[in-house]
C-alpha cells in the first residue's frame, strides 16, 4: 500500500471550499478506562467518574481546534452526555496537547457518569 504525504490540500477550483482534516480521534470505553481505537492519541487520563483528559500523540499548532464528542451509557435509560471541561466548571485542559471532557447522565448534570462508548473527534 502506498502512502500519500502532503503538507496542505487545496481545492483545484478557485472559490471552492477549503479542505479540513481531522487531527485526532478516539473511541474510548470510559467505564473501563481503555481505548477501543484511536488516531493521534497517546493516552487518556482517568481523573475519576465521568472525567477524562485525552492526550494527543503529537501536538497541534495551537489550541484553536474544534472538538466534537458523543457518548452513550450501558442501557437505554442511562443516556450519557459529554461536555468540554472539568466537572462543574468551564475550565479544564484545552491545549495543543490535550483536551478534557466530562460526562454526566441526562436526567441531572450533577450525576457524573462513565460512558461505555465515548467518541471524540478533533478538527483544525
Amino acid at each position, binding site marked *: 500500500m502506498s502512502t500519500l504525504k502532503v503538507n496542505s490540500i487545496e481545492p483545484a477550483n478557485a472559490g471552492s471550499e477549503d479542505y479540513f482534516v481531522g487531527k485526532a480521534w478516539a473511541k474510548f470505553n470510559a467505564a473501563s478506562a*481503555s481505548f477501543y*481505537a484511536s488516531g493521534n492519541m*497517546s*493516552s487518556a*487520563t482517568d481523573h*475519576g467518574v465521568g472525567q477524562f483528559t485525552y492526550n494527543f500523540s503529537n*501536538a497541534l499548532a495551537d489550541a484553536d481546534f474544534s472538538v466534537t464528542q458523543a457518548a452513550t451509557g450501558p442501557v437505554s435509560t442511562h443516556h450519557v452526555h459529554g461536555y468540554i471541561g472539568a466537572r462543574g466548571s468551564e475550565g479544564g485542559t484545552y491545549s*495543543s496537547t490535550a483536551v478534557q471532557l466530562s460526562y454526566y447522565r441526562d436526567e441531572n448534570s450533577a450525576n457524573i457518569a*462513565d460512558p461505555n462508548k465515548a467518541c471524540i473527534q478533533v478538527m483544525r
Partner: protein
Amino acid sequence: MNQYRVIFEDPDQPEAPAMVLAPSDEWMEMAMAGGLPPIWVYWQLQQDEEQAIAEGRHETFEHDPEKLALQYTAPRIGPLTEEEAIEYLIMKDIPRRVWGKEHNRPMFKIVTKDQVPTDRQFRNAWRLAA
C-alpha cells in the same frame, strides 16, 4: 491490548482521587516499532505552551513551526520495550511535578491492567497505596 496502566496522584490536587493513565494501543504499537522522537521534542513544546499560559497569552499562542515539525522530522529513538514505552509515556503525558521531583511518598506507580479495580462504584475515593 497493552497491559500497563499508570496510577498517579497530583501534588497540586491533594484532595483529588488517584488518576489512571491508560495508553492507546496505536501509540504503544508505534512506540514499540521505533516511531517516537526524543522526549525533549515534546517537553519543549509543553514548556512553550505553559509559559504562554503563565504569561496570559494562551489565546494567541502558536507553536514555533520548527519545534512543531520536530515531532515528525527528529531522528527516531528506536524500538522500545513495552516497559520503556510506559516510562516514556509518563514523561510525556503526566505532569512533571508528579514524576520529576522527590516527594515524601510515592506519587505514581506502574501497574498491570488487572491491578486496576473494575468496580468504579467508589472510583472517586481511590488513593495510591503507599
